[in-house]
């Protein structure tokens, strides 16, 4: 690891100001991706600004049909939260499927979506549940947040404060995990929200995306059979040592049907 400066500030404003004054500084959330990246010398930030001392980034609350999770909430806390389990059990089961217990005790929801790994689980939840990402500067709709491979709508220095999830009528997440890393080879969140059906896929493409044909079909008939014949084109999907694009396209259908089947009936 190259050396760097370290600062742990206690307010969003101070942390953003420090980051804005130093282009080479980096926020440190749970560090589950950043620290391994630094150890491999794949990044060389001038400073790490530790977000763990900022009280405003913590906590889970429910009000007016919306579940809100602070950006620095770790996966284990999301998975164990009585509020999450009661209102969006699919989100709790997604959180407990991330990595392993040690990772879930450190990794955070804000860090996960800011990093936007193509195989991360949370992007499927953010898009599938039509969440809103609240930053220090603005509110960003899920459909506008994930832009591409490790690319989001966040501007340099913009800091995620919390993510709000409108409580769906029902939702389920089905995932084909890489057996070693537990990252999603493909993961699909299917949700019946107050504004209609959403089907969001992670792991398959450059970033999370929706499958409009499946959403339309499920709106007419909410059953696994209704989406049986809908194929997702493999053209733009990921091929790597774990799976080909064609296999991932196939898995999108299988995972979507599993998610629907777990909800239907």
């Amino acid at each position, binding site marked *: 690891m*190259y050396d760097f400066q370290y600062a742990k500030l206690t307010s969003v404003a101070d942390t953003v100001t420090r980051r804005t004054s130093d282009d080479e500084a980096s926020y440190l959330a749970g*560090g589950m991706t950043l*620290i*391994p990246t630094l*150890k491999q010398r794949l990044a060389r930030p001038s400073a790490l600004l530790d977000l763990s001392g900022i009280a405003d980034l913590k906590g889970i609350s429910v009000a007016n049909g919306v579940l809100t999770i602070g950006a620095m909430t770790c996966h284990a806390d999301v998975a164990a939260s009585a509020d999450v389990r009661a209102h969006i059990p699919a989100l709790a089961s997604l959180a407990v499927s991330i990595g*392993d*217990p040690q*990772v879930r005790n*450190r990794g955070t929801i804000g860090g996960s979506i800011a990093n936007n790994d193509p195989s991360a689980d949370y992007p499927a939840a953010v898009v599938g549940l039509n969440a809103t990402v609240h930053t220090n500067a603005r509110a960003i709709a899920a459909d506008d947040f994930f832009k591409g491979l490790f690319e989001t709508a966040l501007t340099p220095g913009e800091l995620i404060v919390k993510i709000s999830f409108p409580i769906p009528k029902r939702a389920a997440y089905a995932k084909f995990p890489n057996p*070693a890393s537990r990252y999603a080879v493909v993961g699909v969140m299917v949700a019946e929200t107050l504004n209609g059906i959403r089907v969001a896929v992670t792991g398959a493409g450059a970033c999370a995306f929706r499958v409009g044909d499946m959403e339309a079909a499920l709106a007419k008939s909410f059953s696994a059979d209704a989406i049986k014949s809908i194929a997702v084109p493999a053209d733009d999907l990921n091929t790597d040592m774990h799976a080909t694009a064609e296999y991932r396209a196939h898995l999108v259908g299988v995972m979507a049907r599993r998610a629907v089947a777990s909800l239907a009936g």
Partner: protein
Amino acid sequence: MTNVTVTVNGTSRSAEVEARTLLVEFLRNKLNLTGTHVGCDTSQCGACTVHLNGKPVKSCTMLAVQADGQNVTTIEGVAPGSDLHPMQAAFKECHGLQCGFCTPGMVMSALGIIARHQGRALDEKTVRQELEGNLCRCTGYQGIVNAVLLGAKNMGVKVA
């Protein structure tokens, strides 16, 4: 250099470290607590597992400065002197180790499982699933799983 103070196994310990010093380096090199191992250095094997404020974390994937002001428990802190903790005794009893390199991390993860299942019955499937952050290249895991279940039983946790 930064001064960090961490309560390690109940005792306040301070040292000057670089910001890039990993928690495991602080424990092993500054405090000579070499029971915590580095197996892979890529956050996968779990040999470096310690408890941070009572919860298992990988000390190779955390900076020492991040632990400043917090409580860390290492394998040296689970039982006094040469006594064995019931979970350590169970690993010995069930042949839960061969080379022993992964064992400190396995025991710390096992104690995490026990802590998460207070008041609930623990079964073999759960143990296997929740040991997914720890790799063993000797035992084939059967002895480890048996050890965790026996350790749990001896600690008063109901085993299904």
